[in-house]
């Protein structure tokens, strides 16, 4: 089955951990992930600036490793990311900000990518939200 996975919650929320576990289980079960789309506070899970205490799970790191390893399409909503200070090199330059905290394997893009994933997938699975 083709899954699109949307994440709306911050890295420290339990639903963000469940999202990663679900994504790992989907691939392990032979399914396909057409796209990961991070929106709202979910954009923080793509930030390379998150520092997790040594004895805790580093979810942003685990997401990045997972996306790289499986060469997934990891898209972060640009409007949600800018609002929350998650910037790639291009946006940091555009808005003259000193920090870049979004790098490969992530890509900033628009909400059209969420709709595109919804159309391409058999199932959209959302994590987070109220």
């Amino acid at each position, binding site marked *: 089955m083709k899954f699109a996975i949307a994440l709306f919650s911050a890295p420290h929320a339990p639903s963000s951990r469940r999202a990663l576990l679900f994504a790992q289980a989907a691939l392990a079960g032979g399914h396909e992930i057409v796209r990961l789309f991070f929106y*709202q506070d979910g954009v923080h899970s793509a930030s390379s600036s998150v520092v997790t205490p040594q004895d805790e799970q580093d979810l942003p790191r685990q997401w990045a490793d997972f996306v790289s390893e499986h060469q997934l399409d990891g898209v972060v909503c640009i409007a949600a990311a800018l609002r929350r200070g998650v910037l790639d090199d291009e946006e940091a330059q555009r808005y003259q900000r000193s920090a870049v905290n979004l790098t490969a394997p992530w890509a900033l893009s628009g*909400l059209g990518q969420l*709709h595109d994933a919804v159309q391409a997938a058999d199932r959209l699975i959302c994590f987070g939200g109220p």
Partner: protein
Amino acid sequence: MSKSLLIISRQAPWSGPAAREALDIVLAGGAFDLPIGLLFMDDGVFQLMPGQNAKALQQKDLTANLQALSLFGIDALYACADSLADRGIFPTQVAGEDLEVLTAEELGALVNRYDQVITL
């Protein structure tokens, strides 16, 4: 045929960016001519209240965006009757041209009609 998508907006308009971000998904879908529905539920029904004063909260007014939905081809708008009643809001207070107020039973049928659902 395009898959249909229902957005369930459950946050009050001024409780953070959630209401605006739910609306942004709807507007983006409309721009791509996709079949999108928008359901206001729980505190989300407060977004429909007339006479909001966003300026007093130093916020941008969301209601203008709601009124723009029809320009984007979004005319499937729904509100949960129980959520309105729980908050002492009469359906006539929030009645819009395209807004349909649905009972709990009708909500179940609505969600079943859509291919995909996002709750924000």
